[in-house]
């Protein structure tokens, strides 16, 4: 059963990767990356059970906490590049 779950998750990862490759906008790619991240967390958890080493759930936990930072960094990046493009930095508070 773990296998089924993990296979489904891996399939979803493939789909997400396809989306990341297809784009078409950068937002789609970020979305795909985000999806990929959460799927990684799930897969790590499932595989930890599959291998019988549940003490490795720490890894999944780490991902759950950190993956989010990457996406927020992207947001800041978008915002700052927009500010730069607008030529009026800091205006958009």
């Amino acid at each position: 059963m773990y296998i089924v779950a993990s296979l489904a998750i891996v399939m979803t990862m493939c789909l997400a990767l396809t989306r990341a490759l297809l784009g078409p906008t950068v937002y789609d790619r970020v979305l795909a990356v985000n999806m990929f991240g959460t799927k990684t967390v799930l897969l790590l958890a499932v595989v930890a059970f599959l291998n019988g080493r549940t003490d490795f759930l720490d890894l999944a936990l780490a991902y759950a906490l950190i993956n989010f930072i990457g996406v927020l960094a992207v947001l800041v990046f978008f915002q700052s590049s927009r500010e730069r493009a607008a030529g009026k930095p800091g205006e958009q508070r």
Partner: protein
Amino acid sequence: MEILGLYNYWVFGALLMIGFFALIARQNLVKKLLGLSIFQSAVFLLYISLAKVEGGTAPIILDPTAAEIFSNPLPQVLILTAIVVGISTTALGLAIVVRIREAYDTIEDDEIRRLDRRS
């Protein structure tokens, strides 16, 4: 199955060469750095693949009396170090790229070369 046991090596080779290709054939400096990190990741994969023992598990011995098979800890240690080296190199490379951008206003290798020739 015998052949599949070598698949990791092939992926290692493929990744290595993809990274290498980006390093050589791409002009953008950030792209080169991305290529560099793929290049290094390939080596990580090689070492970690070496460490795997069939039916084994991560080398964390919670119960020394249980007769478990453990994967090889040594390559993992080496790669921990190598990952750190990789991120350090990338960080330094990015810093240089930022400075290059400030000095040349471009991060395309061929344009930089053209600017250098002109001066």
